[in-house]
């Protein structure tokens, strides 16, 4: 259904506009309009996911189609990989918005919040659908500018400072990306990703593209907060309102960071061994350091933010291992396993990290603190928050039968079969460290005896917040079904194929 593709960007953009326009006139307009718009998007995304299968469809914006093999206009492309991202974005977006209905009441200017929320969704949908480098950059900027504003939404001292830091580093990243896009255009005279690939195959000058790739790794590495580029993430993600933290950690760093990196390195550039090793090393380093720093945190949301860095490290490392194996040309099934594991972990991380930030938001909503030392004994007074956060914690630290166990298992099996014994050991070790700091979270927040008697009168959070948490917790369990080979085959295989047969993207889209 290629007529649906532009609606993924158009619906949230129009809703943002309408919400800004009408929320002052009609009381409570934003409170019912934004959830309806996002529900539409979610239904459409799931519909596309169910119908797409192995095929890929493209939509020519403005009717400018391919003439004589030259793509003139802008294209939006939906294939197995982008449809998965699209579903996660709209799913987590919808759940976080439902959660916001109660959570955001303590802030003023609610209308602006919902409008920015719609803009962030529009930008991310645009990034994953875009088949054109510059268009991708524009949508990326739409979503990150909205996220700058949302990080500063509380307008307290820390929020503003975090947002300023985020903007300076984000602006730097955008410039590196723009420069890289300009250089690619210089060499190939085209911006269409599929066309760039086919031009590159005819004449590939390796030193030039290595430079471009390094620019792209730094640019999108900054957006994805891979370790040497991570400085903004713990501040920004912990200062934002909690549903926004869930969006930022759950999907934004994946949609504008990891997704684009993987899409460009698999479907645009020709693989090179050096770059694959660099990506794997960056992933492994962020996995390790993120987990070790998270262990030392006492601020709950900062701990979760560092844990995001660590989990993104798993994903990047898995894709990097896949790249190395593909370059070597042997062990292709192992490469597919590594890529599948990375993809599976990407989906899982969106769900459980979203849930954990919503839990943190629930605690902050009732206690007005994020300090783990000031909590304690909350499992009896907040049973829903306690049980859902327990499920999320077990799932992120890889305890069966939750989803995190299976995706980590896939990555570790792939690492062992691909003879990356060090990486396999590291992945297991980091998983244990993850368990340690989530047990710390569980113990200090929910199971310790509290010294403060006022904590006994805390009430459970309102319905819309507990509904979203329970929904995501059940999804954590349900996603472990993806480990069953036949389900995995049906749901993840199209995306793995897109990445494994990396030439196919350009040849099918150009109709060669």
């Amino acid at each position, binding site marked *: 259904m290629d007529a649906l593709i532009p609606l993924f960007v158009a619906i949230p953009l129009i809703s943002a506009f309408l919400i800004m326009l009408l929320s002052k006139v009609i009381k409570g307009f934003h409170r019912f309009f934004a959830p309806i718009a996002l529900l539409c998007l979610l239904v459409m995304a799931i519909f596309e996911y169910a119908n797409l299968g192995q095929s890929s469809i493209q939509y020519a914006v403005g009717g400018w189609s391919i003439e004589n093999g030259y793509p003139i206009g802008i294209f939006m492309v939906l294939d197995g990989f982008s449809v998965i991202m699209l579903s996660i974005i709209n799913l987590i977006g919808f759940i976080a918005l439902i959660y916001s209905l109660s959570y955001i009441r303590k802030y003023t200017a609610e209308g602006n919040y919902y409008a920015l929320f719609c803009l962030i969704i529009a930008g991310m949908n645009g990034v994953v659908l875009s088949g054109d480098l*510059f268009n991708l*950059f*524009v949508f990326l*900027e739409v979503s990150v*500018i909205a996220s*700058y*504003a949302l990080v*500063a939404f509380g*307008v307290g*001292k*820390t929020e*503003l*400072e*975090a*947002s*300023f*830091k985020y*903007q*300076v580093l984000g*602006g*730097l990243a*955008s*410039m590196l990306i*723009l*420069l890289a896009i*300009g250089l690619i*255009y*210089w060499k190939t*005279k085209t*911006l269409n990703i599929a066309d760039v690939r086919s031009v590159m195959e005819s004449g590939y000058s390796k030193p030039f593209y290595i430079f471009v790739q390094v620019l792209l790794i730094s640019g999108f590495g900054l957006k994805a907060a891979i370790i040497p580029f*991570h*400085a*903004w993430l*713990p*501040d920004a993600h912990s*200062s934002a309102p909690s549903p926004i933290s869930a969006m930022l950690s759950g999907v934004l760093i994946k949609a504008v960071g990891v997704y684009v990196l993987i899409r460009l390195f698999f479907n645009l550039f020709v693989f090179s061994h050096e770059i694959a090793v660099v990506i794997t090393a960056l992933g492994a380093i962020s996995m390790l350091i993120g987990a070790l720093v998270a262990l030392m945190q006492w601020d709950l949301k900062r701990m979760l933010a560092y844990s995001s860095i660590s989990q993104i490290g798993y994903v990047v490392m898995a894709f990097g291992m896949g790249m190395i194996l593909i370059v070597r040309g042997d062990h292709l099934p192992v490469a597919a396993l590594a890529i599948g594991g990375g993809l599976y972990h990407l989906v899982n991380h969106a769900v459980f990290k979203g849930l954990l930030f919503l839990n943190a938001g629930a605690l902050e909503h009732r206690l007005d603190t994020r300090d783990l030392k000031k909590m304690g004994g909350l499992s009896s007074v907040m049973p829903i928050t306690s049980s859902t956060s327990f499920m999320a914690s077990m799932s992120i630290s890889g305890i069966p039968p939750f989803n995190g166990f299976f995706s980590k298992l896939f990555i570790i099996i792939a690492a062992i079969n691909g003879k990356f014994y060090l990486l396999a050991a590291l992945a297991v070790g980091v998983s244990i460290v993850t368990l340690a700091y989530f047990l710390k979270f569980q113990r200090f927040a929910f199971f310790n005896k509290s010294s403060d008697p006022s904590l006994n009168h805390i009430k459970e959070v309102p319905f819309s917040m507990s509904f979203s948490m329970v929904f995501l917790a059940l999804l954590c369990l349900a996603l472990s079904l993806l480990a069953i080979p036949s389900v995995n085959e049906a749901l993840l295989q199209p995306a793995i194929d897109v990445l494994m047969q990396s030439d196919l993207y350009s040849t099918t889209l150009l109709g060669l």
Partner: protein
Amino acid sequence: MTVYILCFVLFLVGLYGVLTRRNLIKIAISLSIMEFSIFLILVLIGYIENGIAPILDPGRADQVYVDPLPQAMVLTAIVIGLATTAMLMAIAIRLYRKYKTFDIREIRNLRG
């Protein structure tokens, strides 16, 4: 070649400013300088020696035109740059109201 080197120098000037300045506004200005050096590079990419503005004239078939696509890209990028600068300024002003200073040495609650 000289113009490309000058663009790169401009980029480094901006980078130096972002890294060393202590004033929020000066950091924002340095970011803008970096941004504009990138825009200049983009325009240079589209420039063709002795080319004129790409308005096709059927009477002169041998005329050389410059590449219009990077120009369109730069226009879009300038608009995006405007949005980011406005956002940065808005945050800087809010920070000034909270702290009564633009000095980043005094605005340090958070540490990476």
